[in-house]
């Protein structure tokens, strides 16, 4: 690792001042589980590492029935998945965050970092996308909100400018008759990177026999986490039955643009898109029905 300076600002203002002055040579660190590895292999070589863990706004974790869930960008995964409101209202976030790395990684890593690292395989991003989450991005004097579905722009790249930082991720309050779910395929039982990951969100009508809205997002099958809007369009207003869910799986397969690599061939990944999408939608439906 080349020499790097380290700052640990204790206020958002001082963090933003640092970024205004030298954002182009600064990397922001939360849990450090990705950035420290990148520094060590020199795929990132910033002059300054800015530790964001002591900034109060980035440590917020709060839930409100009207405004939903606010996840500070530096909240570690173990705090998120142990939170009673997250467990009750956002089980898909628990699905995602309990399978990122192992226990020591979850003690450090953050959803904010997972988003900003912008890996196509990130396990938390599809869930955030299907839940309709937005990212609050701050620079000196300016706050902007970006839907998580538009946050990533390529493998490891995103909409953040050098003078900006992610402050919170905001997830809408859960609607009645709705639930979400995330699952991935890995050849091992744990500690692996998704061959394919699928997040789904389903909202049914009051009698539970028609889809009102459905979102599906895929990991590891495109340069960015993929938001499969074709499924949302197709399933909206349709009956809940195997045939329609089968078609959703087919649409996921058609939307995916996977590559072949050591984790799986493109063909295998497309097959998995279809299988996992069907399973995940069914799991979301089970959650709505309390099964």
């Amino acid at each position: 690792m080349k020499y790097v300076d380290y700052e640990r600002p204790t206020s958002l203002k001082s963090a933003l001042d640092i970024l205004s002055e030298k954002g182009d040579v600064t990397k922001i660190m939360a849990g450090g589980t990705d950035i420290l590895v990148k520094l060590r292999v020199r795929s990132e070589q910033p002059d300054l590492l800015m530790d964001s863990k002591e900034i109060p706004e980035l440590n917020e974790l709060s839930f409100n029935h009207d405004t939903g869930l606010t996840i500070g960008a530096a909240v570690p995964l173990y705090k998120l998945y142990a939170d009673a409101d997250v467990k009750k209202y956002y089980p898909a976030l628990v699905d995602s965050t309990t399978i990122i790395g192992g226990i020591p990684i979850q003690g450090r890593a953050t959803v904010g970092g997972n988003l900003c690292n912008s890996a196509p395989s990130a396990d938390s991003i599809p869930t955030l996308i299907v839940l309709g989450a937005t990212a609050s991005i701050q620079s000196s004097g300016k706050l902007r909100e970006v839907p998580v579905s538009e946050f990533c722009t390529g493998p490891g790249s995103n909409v953040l400018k050098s003078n900006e930082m992610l402050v919170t991720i905001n997830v809408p309050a859960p609607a009645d008759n709705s639930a979400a779910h995330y699952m991935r395929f890995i050849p091992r039982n744990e500690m692996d990177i998704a061959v394919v990951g699928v997040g789904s969100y389903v909202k049914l009508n009051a009698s539970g026999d028609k889809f009102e809205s459905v979102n599906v997002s895929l990991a590891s099958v495109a340069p960015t986490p993929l938001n499969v809007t074709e499924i949302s369009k197709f399933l909206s207003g349709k009956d809940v039955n195997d045939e329609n869910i089968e078609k959703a799986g087919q649409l996921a397969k058609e939307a995916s643009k996977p590559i072949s690599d050591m984790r799986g061939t493109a063909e295998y990944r497309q097959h998995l898109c279809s299988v996992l999408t069907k399973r995940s939608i069914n799991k979301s439906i089970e959650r709505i029905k309390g099964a």
Partner: protein
Amino acid sequence: MSKKVHVQTIINGEDVEFLCEPRQSLLECLRDVIGMTGTKEGCNDGNCGACTVILEGRTVTSCLVLGVEVDGKELTTIEGIADGEKLHPIQTAFLENAALQCGICTPGFIIATKSLLDHNPDPSEYEIRWWLANNLCRCTGYDKIVRAVQESAKKIKAQAGG
């Protein structure tokens, strides 16, 4: 070139101060700066768990923590597990169950086990395997380690009860 930072921390209950460069990992600081070599280096990228320590009550891989980050924080390392010459029940259980061969992963496993049992004194086999998934052992095949952890839980419970 190399500006050093002063770090004040508590390791195994004792105040420790050291100087390090911001780029140095906690693992490097423990081993090369402070001279506490019980914590081992394996992969140096968070996969193998040989360097596991407890930081503010959470298990972390010390290769993915910077030395400067532990300023004002509290750490437990393998050196803080035994009570002087008296082994901790986890250490005894690992010995009795032959849960180690070459030994390089053992400090990490013992720290991870300590942390598991602190959080969950009566874990199922599934919970043990899940919690220890971030610790790799290339010798034992894990079964002996799982048995040692189960035995550790019993020993600690017996100690607390008696």
